C-alpha cells in the first residue's frame, strides 16, 4: 500500500502534513531514485505520464533500482521542500521533481545535499547537481495543426487554454502556423479558463466555442473534459499530455503525449555509472519526448502521410515550426522571412500570430 497524503487524509481527519512518507520497498543494494509529483497520478495527464516513465525505469533496470514516488505534493508552502529533503535524507541518490513550482525547493535542498543528484522538470535554474529537462510540446502541437487544418470544415478551431503564458502560447501559435500551411483560411478562437484543472469550466468553454462554430477543439488544461464534450457534440478534438482516444473514440483525432521513459532510464543509468553531469535537456519529436498518440481511423491516409512527412522533417531539422515569415495580430513581423526563432525567443513567446483570435495580458 502506498502511503500518500491522500490515503492518510482518507483514514483520518488530521491534516497529514507530517505523514507524507514515500513509498519504500528498498532492496539494500539497489540505487534509490525518488520522484515528486504535483498531482495525484490519476489515469491520464501530466503526472500520469511521469508515473509511466517511473514504471518504465523500473522495468528497464529491474532490481538495480528502487524508484520511490510521492504524489500530490503542493507547490506552494513548505511541503515540497520538506518532502524533497526527506527523500534525500532517506538515501535517494537521484531525485526527479516534476513540476515547475518545485524549482526553488529543489535548488535549496540540492545545496545541502551536494552528493545527491536532482533533475527538475520545466525549470530554468541549474546547479552542479541539478539538471533541468522539458519537452518541446509545440512540435507535437504543430502536427495536430496539420490534421486540424485538413479536417475542419468551418475553418474555426476552438482552443481551451489555461493561462496566457509562453508554454500555452507556443502551442496555439504552432497549431495556427501548421494549419495554415494546409488551409490558409483557418482561424483559432482562444478561451482562457484561468485554471489548470476545472472540468466544469473546461467543458463550458468547449461548449461555447462549439456553439460559435468551431468544429475542431483542443485544450491546454489538465482534464479530459474537452475531449468528452466534443464527443457528445460530434466535433473533432485533440487530447493533451496523455492519449485520450478512449474519452472520445469517435471524434478524438489524436493526442500530443509526453514520454519521459528514455530520459529517466538514461539519466538513472548515468547516475549509477557515475557519469551523470548536470545538463539541460529540451527534447522534442526527435528524442521521442513528445509523441503523437494513435491516430483516429477518421484521419484519411493522405493526411496521415502529410503528418508523417512533417514529423520526419521536424526530426531532421529541415522543418522548424517557428520559421518566418510570421506576423502577429497587429500585423508586425515577428519572424522575418527566412529566419526562425531562437530557443530563448520560443521560451519567452508572448504574442499571438495573425489568425489567432484572443488576447494576451
Amino acid at each position: 500500500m502506498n502511503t500518500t497524503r491522500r490515503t492518510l487524509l482518507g483514514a483520518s481527519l488530521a491534516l497529514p502534513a507530517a505523514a507524507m512518507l514515500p513509498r519504500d520497498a528498498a532492496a539494500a543494494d539497489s540505487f534509490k531514485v525518488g520522484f515528486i509529483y504535483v498531482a495525484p497520478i490519476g489515469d491520464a495527464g501530466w503526472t500520469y505520464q511521469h508515473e509511466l516513465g517511473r514504471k518504465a525505469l523500473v522495468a528497464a533496470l529491474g532490481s538495480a533500482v528502487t524508484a520511490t514516488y510521492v504524489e500530490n505534493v503542493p507547490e506552494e508552502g513548505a511541503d515540497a521542500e520538506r518532502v524533497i529533503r526527506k527523500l534525500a535524507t532517506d538515501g535517494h541518490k537521484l531525485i526527479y521533481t516534476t513540476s515547475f513550482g518545485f524549482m526553488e525547493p529543489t535548488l535549496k535542498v540540492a545545496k545541502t545535499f551536494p552528493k545527491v543528484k536532482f533533475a527538475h522538470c520545466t525549470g530554468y535554474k541549474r546547479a552542479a547537481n541539478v539538471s533541468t529537462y522539458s519537452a518541446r510540446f509545440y512540435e507535437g502541437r504543430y502536427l495536430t495543426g496539420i490534421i486540424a487544418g485538413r479536417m475542419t470544415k468551418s475553418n474555426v478551431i476552438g482552443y481551451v487554454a489555461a493561462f496566457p503564458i509562453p508554454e500555452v502560447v507556443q502551442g496555439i501559435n504552432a497549431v495556427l502556423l501548421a494549419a495554415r500551411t494546409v488551409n490558409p483560411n483557418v482561424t483559432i478562437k482562444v478561451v482562457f479558463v484561468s485554471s489548470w484543472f476545472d472540468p466544469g469550466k473546461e467543458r463550458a468553454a468547449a461548449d461555447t466555442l462549439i456553439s460559435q462554430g468551431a468544429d475542431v477543439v483542443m485544450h491546454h488544461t489538465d482534464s479530459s473534459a474537452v475531449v468528452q464534450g466534443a464527443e457528445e457534440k460530434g466535433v473533432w478534438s485533440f487530447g493533451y499530455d496523455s492519449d485520450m482516444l478512449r474519452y472520445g473514440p469517435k471524434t478524438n483525432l489524436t493526442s500530443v503525449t509526453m514520454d519521459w521513459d528514455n530520459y529517466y532510464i538514461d539519466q538513472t543509468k548515468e547516475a549509477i555509472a557515475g557519469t551523470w553531469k548536470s545538463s539541460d535537456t529540451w527534447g522534442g519529436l526527435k528524442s521521442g519526448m513528445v509523441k503523437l498518440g494513435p491516430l483516429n481511423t477518421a484521419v484519411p491516409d493522405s493526411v496521415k502521410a502529410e503528418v508523417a512527412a512533417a514529423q520526419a522533417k521536424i526530426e531532421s531539422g529541415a522543418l522548424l515550426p517557428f520559421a518566418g515569415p510570421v506576423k502577429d495580430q497587429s500585423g508586425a513581423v515577428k519572424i522575418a522571412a527566412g529566419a526562425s526563432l531562437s530557443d530563448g525567443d520560443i521560451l519567452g513567446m508572448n504574442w499571438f500570430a495573425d489568425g489567432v483570435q484572443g488576447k494576451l495580458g
Partner: protein
Amino acid sequence: MHEVEIAVAIAVATLRAATPLMLAGFGELITERSGVLNLGVEGMMLMGASVGFIGTVATGSPILGLLLAMLAGAALALVFGVLTLSLMANQVATGLALTIFGVGFSALVGVNWVGTPLQGLSTDIWPSLSTAPPMVQQLMLLDPLVWVAVLLPFVVQWFIYRTRAGMILRAVGESSDVAHALGYSVLRIRYFAVLFGGAMSGLAGAYLSLAYSPMWSENMVAGRGWIALALVVFSTWKPLWLALGSLLFGFVTIAQFQAEGLGLALSPHLLAMLPYIATIVVLVLISRDATRLKLNAPAALGRPFHATA
C-alpha cells in the same frame, strides 16, 4: 437570427453553470437559517460527486446515483451535526475540517473510477421534442436537475416565509433560547437543516460529475462550494437574491467565454475576474442597507445551543 441563437446558447449555458451553485446554496441557506454555519460545502459536494458517479456507473441508474450522492452528502453532514450540535464543537473549525476530509475521502473512494467514461444524465424528459422549434428544443434539452434548480428558489421562499415549519426554522436560527422556551426541539430542527444542507450539497456535486461534465476526477468541484457559501452571505440569506446571485455568477462566467470566442479585445485576466466582481458588486448594492442586512442575518448563526432548562 444569429443573435437569437447566441442568446439562447448563453441562457442555456448560464442555467447549467448556475445549477450547482443554486443546489448547494439553497441547502446551505436552510442550514444557516437554522443558525448553523457549515463551511464543509466543498467537501460534501465532492463526496456527492464521487459517490454519485460511482453509484451511477455501478447500478446503471442515474436516479440511484443521485440518491446515493444525497445520502453521502447527508452522511458527512451528520458527522458535522454530531460534532457541532451534540458535542458543541466550534462550527467554523469543524466545517473547515469537513471540507479537508471530504477532499481526501472523495479522492480515496473514487480512485478506481477516475477516467471511467459515462453517458451524462438523460435529457430526454419531454415528449414530442422533434416538433418543437429549434430554440425551444435547446431549452428542452436541459437536464432535469436544472429544472429542479429553477424551481428551488420559489419553493424555498414559500417554505421559509409561508409555512409553519419554515417559521419554526427561522425562529430557531434567530433565537434558539426563545424557540426552546416555546417548546421546539432546537437540536432536532437543526439536525434536519444540517442534513438537508448536506443532501443538497451532495446533489450539487453529483450534478457536476453526472451532468455538467460527466466524469469523476479528484477535486473536480474546483471551489464551487466556497462560491455557493459566499453567495449565501452576499444574498443576505434571501432565497430570491441567492438565485439572482447564482445566475449572475453563471452568466458572467459564460459571457466571458462567449466574449473571448467572439474576439472581444479584453484582457483575459480582467475577464477572469469579472464573475466575482460583478456578483459581489450587484449583491452588495442590493443589500447595502446595513440595518436590513443585520435584520436578515440569522441572529443565532454559528452559536451552539445548550438547553439549560
